[in-house]
């Protein structure tokens, strides 16, 4: 994000204060499909972010629509809590249609 503070990063660089904010780019490849995350870029403001997103991520007709979101505005689940969050779904096999064994003659319902 815009203020990396990992221990491996010496934060003393004064130039960092002038770095353009980071944006995440989402592209809809064609009507009917979802916007999909495809990368990030630096831009000073929303208009520039959209313009740069077009130039950087859709040079070969990869998109018909672009979203940009400031990276520091994204709220994400904590990777440290991945198992706590997602593992409970593992033992709920009855949520899948294949859990139910039906007679062959009606198995296409």
């Amino acid at each position, binding site marked *: 994000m815009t203020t990396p503070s*990992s221990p491996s990063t010496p934060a003393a660089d004064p130039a*960092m204060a002038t*770095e*353009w904010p980071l944006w995440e780019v989402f592209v809809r490849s064609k009507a009917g499909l979802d916007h999909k995350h495809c990368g990030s*870029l630096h831009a*000073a403001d929303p208009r520039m972010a959209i313009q740069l997103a077009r130039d*950087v991520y859709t*040079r*070969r007709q990869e998109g018909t629509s672009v979203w940009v979101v400031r990276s520091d505005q994204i709220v994400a689940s904590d990777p440290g809590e991945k198992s706590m969050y997602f593992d409970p779904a593992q033992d709920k096999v009855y949520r899948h249609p294949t859990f139910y064994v039906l007679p062959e003659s009606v198995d296409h319902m």
Partner: protein
Amino acid sequence: MYTQAMDTMGKDAGDTGNKALRSAEDMQRQEAFDARIDAGEFIEAKDWMPDHYRKTLLRQISQHAHSEIVGMLPEGNWISRAPTLKRKAILLAKVQDEGGHGLYLYAAAETLGTSRDQMLDALHTGRAKYSSIFNYPTLTWADMGTIGWLVDGAAIMNQVPICRCSYAPYARAMVRICREESFHQRQGYDALLTMMQQGTDAQRAMVQDAINRWWWPSIMMFGPPDDQSPNSAQSMRWGIKRVSNDTLRQKFIDATVEQARVLGVTLPDPDLQWNEERQAHDYGAIDWSEFWRVIGGDGPCNEERLGARVKAWDDGAWVREAALAHAAKHTPARAAA
């Protein structure tokens, strides 16, 4: 675009990997990490990773990004001199691609916890390296075709295995890059073919001259021989590197020989010949002293290339500042809401 085996540059990076004192918790994390690598899983940006893994990737991805950006210079030199409007449009598109590839890669490197400005500072002060191939001059139009054919061709050979790199943000950037890269090699070969088949004797001689100059630097792009590539084993272990330098070099040479024959040019290596027993081409000794000299800063164009990057950065400072000032002026207290 362009990478060379970047582990060649880790000579002075020091082994910070396994010496530091580590807590029991870190040991457990390390074991879990190794198990994930062994299982062929991808590592994402926020996942725990060993420090040395992070540093190795940061060095490789940022150097790869720098190579894309510096790589725009030798070809940019010929945009205004392209022989036809068609070739000019093609070259513009290619150079723009290289810029885009640099941006994908900088973004991937930033996920490892460094800033764009820090990476650029490392490049501009000479602490970070870029591919040695861009320190050679582009003397004629035939150099454009030859760079596309040989330099981009070697880069593709290098980059395809990185699409399966264990670090997911890097792998995703490489997938995108490789998808765009094929046109770079084909347009170069096409430009050379046009000169060889429809050109004058002087133009054909120009093509041969360009190939004579670029051949050896191109096959050096795969990095030093496997037995002189000390960091390769660790990178292989971590799934950062998938195929060895010599294996890739051999594959490139074997593919290129037939392409040269169709083109009607010779590759400047008297020892280059098919070895029936190995089912591969033998080739002559590579002058590695030249490679290390050019990487070390003493190539024909090192100063010029770096000078151009530093000048562009310094001259653009007021634009970067003005854009931020403009943005601040036009986003009134929205953040406070």
